[in-house]
């Protein structure tokens, strides 16, 4: 998925908020005496008994599930729409609009693992007009793979669902997709290989049901405007409906009165678009936000604050380099750069200790995670010098000029300055620093013609929690997501076999073998796994963070979130303890 949701951090200037936040021990004790409603901001109070959750938000271009490529946005869409399946608290697929999770045992999956049957329950659309049918899901899947629609996730089903690849390449009509409605309540998906992880894909936002007559209604400025309530009622199927979108200001989700699942406890989710973490933090302290980011330089101060929630995102960050061109086509050079990075210092100096050092490829949360893998490539100045000398560049001599590419921002600059000193110290290599604007930087990973030369920080985040999203899909020879140009036939063979393996135990073995092969080849220099951090007011109850929620804490279970009723009926002055805590 979105490689690098920590890049969202860099987008603070324009669109982004700093990312995430929560830890796993969910329910926080409520103490009424430490929270009081904001004195000046009546909209933050709940004197009328209306429960409004105010969270720091950012501006989005649309809330169209099939067109979404960003976890945070997808998590918000989870409030508006529902799909076949969803993740439970342990990130396992659980029923949503489908009655049950199909398995071979319950007959939902054919014995060859190629046919999936989803039986739908009675599930109302948010406008109360009609129920979600199998045809609606067919429509959603077809929108996803339709190349003209241009979904950034259109390629996810390639090589998995029948005809998906050909449709994406324009060789087959969308109607040929292996997703069919057998009747109003039965959906059948036909696969080209027994991808045992298909239920995980069916839990993703891209399968959320959308209603054709609402999506394609007339009077819209452009196709993607259908999720803007300014142009008519947006019909969804989730616990909330979007009722107000004051662009660049706030987005309001209200409880869906026609929701077919457990009704949401909150009345409104009010997302206030605020891009600067310092301002968001001030607003949080002033009780204008219930959930907010904070300036990362305050992390060490806030670490012990019970309001701080921190949890690992299912992502791995690395230092990338082109494996095809010299000097990084030489594995010894890549090794040397891996040995040369003092990751502990890097975490402290560059990331304010918010991220966690990691040398393996699979991050925590993805089955197959093993932190002991790759530790042999950790910082070791002597080994670094030796590897570089063995590669034919003793003391950096003879090495061509190496560029370090980074996003033009103060964070990016800090990182670049640190690497420059580090590689100079250890390898006697002078990096040429190349700051690039964010959009150009990101686009280089989409288009082989725009690829960066030299070094860059990049990463990968899970679309769904299964190693199939990490192996052949990312590092397979000539795969679109293989930005470094890594190629190892042995790895290809093992990882493809694993992807098509029906026996879970055998698959796990093969994935482990694939990961070991990958790490031994040092295709990239592994650095860390990012964590999501957010400040949450004690009055917010039942938050469940998830490694996939992109930092929209609790957003996987919007309907569970509640606010402690404020029994002091508001309007009193702020207790100084709250106001001055982190100053």
């Amino acid at each position: 998925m979105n490689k690098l949701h920590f890049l969202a951090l860099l987008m603070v200037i324009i669109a982004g908020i700093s990312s995430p936040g929560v830890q796993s021990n969910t329910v926080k004790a409520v103490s009424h005496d430490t929270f009081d409603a904001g004195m000046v901001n009546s909209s933050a109070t709940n004197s009328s008994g209306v429960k409004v959750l105010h969270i720091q938000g950012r501006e989005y271009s649309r809330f169209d599930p099939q067109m979404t490529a960003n976890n945070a946005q997808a998590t918000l869409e989870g409030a508006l729409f529902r799909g076949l399946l969803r993740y439970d608290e342990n990130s396992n697929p659980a029923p949503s609009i489908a009655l049950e999770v199909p398995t071979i045992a319950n007959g939902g999956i054919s014995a060859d693992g190629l046919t999936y049957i989803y039986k739908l329950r009675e599930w109302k659309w948010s406008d109360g007009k009609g129920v979600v049918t199998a045809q609606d899901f067919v429509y959603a899947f077809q929108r996803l793979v339709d190349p003209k629609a241009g979904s950034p996730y259109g390629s996810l089903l390639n090589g998995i669902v029948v005809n998906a690849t050909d449709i994406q390449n324009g060789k087959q009509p969308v109607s040929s997709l292996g997703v069919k409605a057998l009747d109003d309540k039965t959906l059948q998906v036909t696969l080209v290989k027994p991808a045992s992880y298909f239920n995980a894909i069916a839990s993703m936002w891209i399968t959320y049901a959308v209603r054709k007559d609402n999506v394609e209604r007339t009077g819209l400025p452009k196709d993607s405007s259908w999720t803007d309530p300014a142009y008519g009622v947006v019909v969804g199927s989730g616990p909330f409906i979007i009722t107000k979108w004051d662009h660049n200001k706030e987005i309001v989700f209200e409880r869906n009165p026609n929701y077919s699942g457990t009704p949401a406890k909150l009345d409104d989710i009010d997302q206030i678009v605020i891009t600067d973490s310092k301002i968001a933090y001030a607003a949080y302290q002033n009780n204008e936000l219930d959930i907010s980011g904070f300036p990362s330089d305050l992390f060490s101060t806030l670490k012990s604050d019970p309001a701080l929630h921190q949890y690992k995102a299912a992502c791995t960050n690395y230092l990338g380099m082109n494996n095809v061109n010299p000097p990084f086509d030489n594995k010894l050079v890549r090794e040397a750069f891996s040995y040369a990075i003092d990751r502990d210092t890097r975490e402290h100096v560059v990331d304010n200790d918010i991220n966690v050092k990691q040398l393996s490829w699979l991050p925590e949360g993805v089955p197959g995670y093993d932190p002991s893998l790759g530790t042999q490539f950790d910082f070791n100045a002597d080994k670094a010098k030796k590897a570089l000398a063995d590669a034919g560049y003793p003391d950096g001599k003879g090495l061509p000029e190496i560029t370090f590419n980074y996003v033009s921002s103060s964070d990016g600059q800090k990182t670049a300055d640190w690497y420059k000193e580090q590689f100079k110290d250890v390898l006697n290599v002078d990096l040429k620093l190349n700051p690039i604007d964010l959009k150009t930087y990101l686009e280089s990973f989409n288009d082989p013609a725009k690829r960066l030369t030299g070094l860059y920080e990049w990463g990968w985040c899970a679309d769904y929690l299964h190693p199939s999203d990490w192996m052949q899909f990312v590092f397979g020879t000539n795969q679109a997501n293989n930005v470094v140009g890594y190629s190892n036939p042995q790895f290809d063979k093992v990882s493809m076999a694993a992807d098509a393996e029906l026996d879970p135990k055998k698959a796990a073995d093969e994935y482990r073998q694939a990961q070991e092969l990958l790490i031994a080849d040092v295709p990239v220099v592994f650095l860390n796994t990012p964590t999501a951090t957010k400040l949450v007011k004690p009055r917010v109850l039942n938050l469940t963070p998830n490694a996939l929620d992109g930092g929209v804490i609790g957003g996987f279970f919007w309907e569970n979130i509640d606010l402690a009723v404020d029994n002091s009926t508001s309007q009193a002055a702020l207790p100084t303890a709250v106001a001055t805590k982190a100053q």
Partner: protein
Amino acid sequence: MRKKTVIVSIVVILFWAILALLADQIVPFNYHQMGALLNAPPGAVDPATSYVHWMGTDNLGRDIFSRLLSGTRLSLTICLAADLLITFIGVAVGLVSGYFGGAVDNLLMRITDIMFAFPGLVFAMVMVAVLGRSIEAVLIALGISNWVGMARLVRGQVLQTKQMDYVLAAHSLGARPLDIMIHHLLPNILGPILVFSTLIIPGIVTAEAALAFLNIGVDPSLPTLGGLINYGWDSISSHPTEIAFPILTLAMLTLSFTLLGDSLSDALDPKRR
């Protein structure tokens, strides 16, 4: 009284200029050298070298004082160069436009209208895209997109001044247009020009900071006052001193430039002696 102000302003500016020029001799660090002390408060002593970081260190352990001196040096250079560029273009266009009037005026004013209405940000972005994040790109972007204010000011002043008797007299005596412009018009509008060009100095530094804020400023590896402020902005919550020093330096310099400009305009105005 006035003399004292001039002297103080000049002393402050010279002080910073000399400090900046001799930066490499004054401090044992350079602007990118990283020490062991991270985010040290002002006055912290490095136990290894017993060097006193009297402005503290930043989050990479770099000496803020060293960076400040390097930053001041670069900022002063950029600022003065951009200011000269802006003043030169603006005065030339304004003088010609105001003096000749008619079609020349119309044409030049329409060009200034275009330049004025044209978003400087887009221009800066294009310059950075073409030239990379460099001093030249910023200089050109600042120069090209800011001369219009000066031109309009000069033109307005010229329109007013050229009606004065002595200009009319010079004209009727057959003085050449260039002579009139340089010898009769320019000295009489020098005051506003000086005030304007000193007034835009802080504007230029702020513009440089704004470009840095939007990440289209000079090469970010080189410290400038704007860049240091932008960098310090990231740590303002935990280490406010990091941003305070460049801002105070900037304020001190701009204040001196303004006082100097004011006093100069007094001194240059024949009427005010």
